C-alpha cells in the first residue's frame, strides 16, 4: 500500500516536472524530452499488470490535464506499459532476477549498456506513440522517427540525472 502511495506521489511529481519544466523549456524543435517515463522503469517486477495499465492511464491523463494535451500522453503511457510486457520478456529473466533478490530493474543486473538499450526501447516506444499522434500525418513519418529517437536519447540523459539525484542504483 505504501508502495502504491509512493508511486502516486512520484507520478504527481513527474507530472508537475513535465508540465512545468520540460514542456516549457524549448531545447530544439526535434528534442522534446519526457523523462517521466522513468516511473515505468522503476516499477516493481511483481506488480499487477492490470493495475499498472489502469495506473498508467490515469497518470497520462493527469499529465494531459496539467499540460492541456488531452489524450496524447495517455495514449503513449498506456501503449508503453502494454508494450513493456513484451520488451521485458525479451530483455529480462524475471525468475533469475527474483532469485538474485532484485525487486526492481537495476543497472547491476546486466550492466550500463544493457540498461541503456532497455530504457531506450521503452522510451522510444513512448515517444513514438506520442509523436505519431502529435504529427498525425503519413508525410511526417521520417520526422516522427527522427524526433522520437532524439527525444528518447534526451529523456534517457535526464533519467540518468534523476537517478543520480534520487540515488537510485
Amino acid at each position, binding site marked *: 500500500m505504501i508502495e502504491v502511495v509512493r508511486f502516486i506521489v512520484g507520478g504527481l511529481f513527474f507530472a508537475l516536472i513535465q508540465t512545468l519544466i520540460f514542456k516549457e523549456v524549448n531545447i530544439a524543435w526535434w528534442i522534446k524530452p519526457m523523462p517521466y517515463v522513468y516511473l515505468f522503469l522503476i516499477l516493481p517486477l511483481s506488480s499487477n499488470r*492490470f493495475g499498472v*495499465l489502469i495506473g498508467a*492511464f490515469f497518470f497520462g491523463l493527469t499529465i494531459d490535464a496539467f499540460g492541456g494535451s488531452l*489524450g*496524447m500522453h*495517455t*495514449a503513449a503511457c*498506456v501503449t508503453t506499459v*502494454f508494450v513493456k510486457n513484451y520488451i521485458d520478456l525479451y530483455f529480462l529473466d524475471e525468475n533469475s532476477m527474483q532469485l538474485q533478490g532484485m525487486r526492481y530493474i537495476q543497472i547491476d543486473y546486466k550492466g550500463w549498456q544493457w540498461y541503456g538499450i532497455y530504457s531506450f526501447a521503452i522510451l522510444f516506444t513512448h515517444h513514438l506513440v506520442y509523436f505519431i*499522434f502529435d504529427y498525425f500525418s503519413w508525410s511526417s513519418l521520417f520526422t516522427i522517427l527522427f524526433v522520437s529517437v532524439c527525444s528518447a536519447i534526451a529523456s534517457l540523459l535526464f533519467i540518468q540525472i534523476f537517478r543520480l539525484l534520487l540515488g537510485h542504483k
Partner: protein
Amino acid sequence: MLVIFRWIRNQAYPLLYVLLLLSAVTQIFRYHFYQHSIYFGHALSIHRSIDVWKSGITSYFKLRTTNEQLVKENGLLRNQLNWNLTSNSPKGASTYKDTFTNTLIKYEYIPARVIRNSVNEQNNFIVLDRGYKDGIKKHMSVICPMGIVGVVVESAAHYSLAMSVLNSKFEITPYFYNLKISQGVISWDGDDPSYVELEEVNRFVKLKNGMKLYTSNYSLLFPAGIPIGTIEKSESNLKSNFYSIKVKLATDFSQLDVVTVIKNIHQNELDVLNQIIPTQEGGAND
C-alpha cells in the same frame, strides 16, 4: 456463450489496453483541432468511397428500372421532335392543332419488350409483350434506339406479333441523307442478319460507301428519319440500269430487348386512302 466469456477472460489484458487506448484516442480527436480535422477528413473520404462503391452496386441492380425510365423519356422526347408535329403540315400554321385529338403531335410511342425473336429463319418475326389493350394495332411500326425493327402484323390482347426487317416480305424505301433523295427498295435476302439488299437505285445516282440511309417521308408506316443502315458495298454494271447495293443494318437484331411501337394518330385516314390505292397482294411494305 461460455466460449465467448472464456475468450474475454483470456484476452482481458489486451482488451483493457484497447479500451484505454480508444478512450485516449477519442480524447485526442475530440479536443485537438488538427487531429480532429485530419481524422474526420479521412473518415469522410472513406465514407465517400464506400458511398461511391455502394451506389455503383445499387445502380447496377437498378439498371432495368433506369432502362425503362429512359425508354419512357425517349418516347416523350420523340413526341417533342419537330417532324412529329402536325404544325409542320403544308398548312404551315404554327398554332395548328389536330381537330380530332386536339394535340400537336402526329405519333404516339408505346414502349414494349421483345419476348421472342429470331434471326435464322427466312421469314423472321418478333413477339412483343404489348397487345391491343396497350393500344397496339396492325400496321404500326416498331423501332429501337438503334434503328428500324419491323411492322406489327397481328395483335392479341396482351401480345403482338411483328414482322422483322429480316423477313423476305418486308420492304421499305430508304432516304439517302447525303443526296436528299428517296429511291429504291430495301429487302432481306435471307442470308446474313446484319445486311440487307437495296435494289432499284438508278446507277446514275452518285453513291458512296458509308452513306447513311433513313426512313423516308414516303413511308406510310414509319416516321421519317429513323436509321435503317449504312451502304457497305455498291456495284453497277452496264447490263443493268440499277445498282446492286449491300446495306449494313443499323439495328443489331441479335440484341433486341426494348423497342418502341409507333402509333400514327391519323392512321385511320391513311387506311381509308390506302383502300383507294390498288396495292400488291401480301407483304407489309411501306
